[in-house]
């Protein structure tokens, strides 16, 4: 593995700590050289950026990114008073409430299913995992232009026709009932479920087989009982991690909304499917209002933090389940 090169005698032999600082210097130099690029990059693109953004959010910064025109909390007030922004927050909340449990259940279900397969497990695992390779832009493209396209030869419409529904349905364009919602939820479901299935599958495979044997001895016979009393409680940590990742990702939805609902994003179309990030994108890059854009970024960040903390509380309540599983 590693070379056992002959030890080269160092000039002057090993000098043992003459002056304390002099002996520490090589360590310091190496530490600085190795950490400096990372520290400098994070300083610039995280700390300076966020600090600057925070200051900008208290400025009237339209068409400029320099500070100087302070306007207190006006940007925050403007945003929270703008129905389009608050609607975008409602949109993303509803979306999160939909997509998180649905992805969670499907990913867990597929993991249990794949784990039960004897032969061919790798093929099915790959099948469910491979959509992760596809970008949200391409997913949106297939969903909008083929799977749920508004023409009679779209897949969903062809299926509907087979089921005896003869009218052509405009999936993306239909707001009442909100059919475009099906398009948005299913595309993300397809793109992200495999990733979380992999996490659940790894969690399931780490559960010791003796636990299942012990449970059978104790009288658990059906698959459901084994799942309920062993698998589920043993997966608690994975479940918490998955839920957290799902929430954080859902809150930052942008790509598929932007690409599927493009014609409605001005708020003029029938479905105002703007997410907070799309609203902020339009504010900062369309109107060049960097003050309001920054303020919005902090509102969204605060919401994500609150949501993840809430989730932590809920996960805390489930703790008894873990003890039950031991």
């Amino acid at each position, binding site marked *: 593995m*590693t070379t056992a090169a002959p*030890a*080269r005698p160092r000039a002057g032999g090993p000098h043992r700590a003459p002056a304390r600082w002099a002996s520490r210097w*090589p*360590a310091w130099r*190496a*530490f600085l050289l*190795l*950490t400096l*690029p*990372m520290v400098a990059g994070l300083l610039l*693109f*995280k700390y300076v*950026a*966020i600090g*600057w*953004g925070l200051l*900008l959010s208290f400025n009237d910064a339209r068409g400029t*990114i320099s500070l100087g025109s302070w306007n207190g909390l006006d940007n925050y007030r403007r945003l929270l008073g703008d129905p389009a922004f608050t609607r975008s927050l409602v949109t993303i909340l509803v979306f999160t409430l939909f997509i998180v449990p649905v992805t969670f259940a499907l990913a867990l279900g*597929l993991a249990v299913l*794949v784990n039960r*397969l004897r032969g061919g497990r790798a093929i099915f695992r*790959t*099948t*469910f995992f*491979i*959509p992760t*390779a*596809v970008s*949200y*832009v*391409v997913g*949106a*493209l*297939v969903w*909008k*232009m*083929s*799977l749920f396209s508004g*023409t*009679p*030869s779209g897949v969903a419409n*062809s299926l509907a026709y087979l089921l005896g529904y003869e009218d052509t349905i405009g999936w993306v364009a239909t707001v009442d009932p909100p059919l475009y919602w099906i398009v948005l939820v299913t595309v993300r479901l397809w793109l992200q479920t*495999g990733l979380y299935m*992999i*996490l659940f599958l790894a969690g399931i495979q780490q559960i010791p087989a003796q636990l299942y044997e012990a449970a059978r001895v104790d009288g658990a016979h059906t698959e459901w009982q084994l799942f309920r009393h062993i698998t589920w409680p043993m997966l608690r940590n*994975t479940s918490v*991690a*998955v839920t*957290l*990742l799902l929430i954080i990702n859902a*809150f*930052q939805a*942008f790509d598929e909304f932007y690409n599927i609902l*493009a014609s409605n994003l001005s708020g003029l179309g029938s479905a105002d499917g703007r997410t907070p*990030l799309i609203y902020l*994108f339009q504010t900062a890059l369309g109107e060049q209002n960097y003050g309001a854009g*920054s303020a919005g*970024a902090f509102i*969204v960040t605060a919401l994500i933090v609150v949501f993840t903390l809430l989730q932590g509380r809920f996960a805390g309540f489930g703790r008894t389940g873990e003890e039950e599983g031991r």
Partner: protein
Amino acid sequence: MRKRHLGSYAAAVVFAVPFLLPFYLLIRNALMTRRELGSLDWQWWPEEISFQGFADAFGNEAVPLANALWNSTLIAAISAPLSTLLASMAGYALARIPVAASKPVFYFIIATMMVPGAATFIPTFVVVGSMGGVNTLWGLIAPGLFSAFAVLLFRGFYLRFPRELEDAGRVDGLGFLGLYARLALPNSGALFASLGILSFIEHWNAFLWPLVIGQDPEYWTVQVALSTNLNQQAVNLPALFAGALVAILPLVALFLIAQRWIVRGVLLSGIKG
């Protein structure tokens, strides 16, 4: 028992169909003619395979697809190894070099993990824009090079790195930099590959940041180019799907070849929560 397995396989197949359907659609649509794809009737497969969609996709001067593919390749091929290397360097220093600054620097780095990435795209745009990074390659690449989370993973890995190996290196006269470059880095190939591949995927598929910073068509990535195609007034459907097919091929191939590393990376990253 037999029955149970049959049921599982049946269920797996039923679920597999919708997961594979979009890939089939991509291929079928890319190989159809505009007339066929525009027809009102469902058609399983093109009557005659047409590559006109690919020709149209690459021949469209308004949306320079070849250039966009080149940009994406460049961005992902530079970002993936570089971001992983930077994380590995910092991770090693934090794990193995005993200096007083180690703890504060560690907290300085991991504190950035608490801020969700996409919510900071406007502040980052402000900084990169003020430095003249709009419509530049470095503007597209630089902000994505610094992953505190990867530092955390490498630090964990190097903390478990065998001391004896380092002691042997020290006897050979290696300093800290030598120990890192000759021993630690060459022995972290598996983690390096896993995180590097994940980083490649992430940068290839990124949309929001390239959309924000690469506004000039010359700096469009493949995702931005596809999005532009998608949202045009009169969409050339076969060309749209042909472009999308070309855009996903490198990553699908990567998934099929290097799935082991990708799964490893996903599992490491999933522990995050």
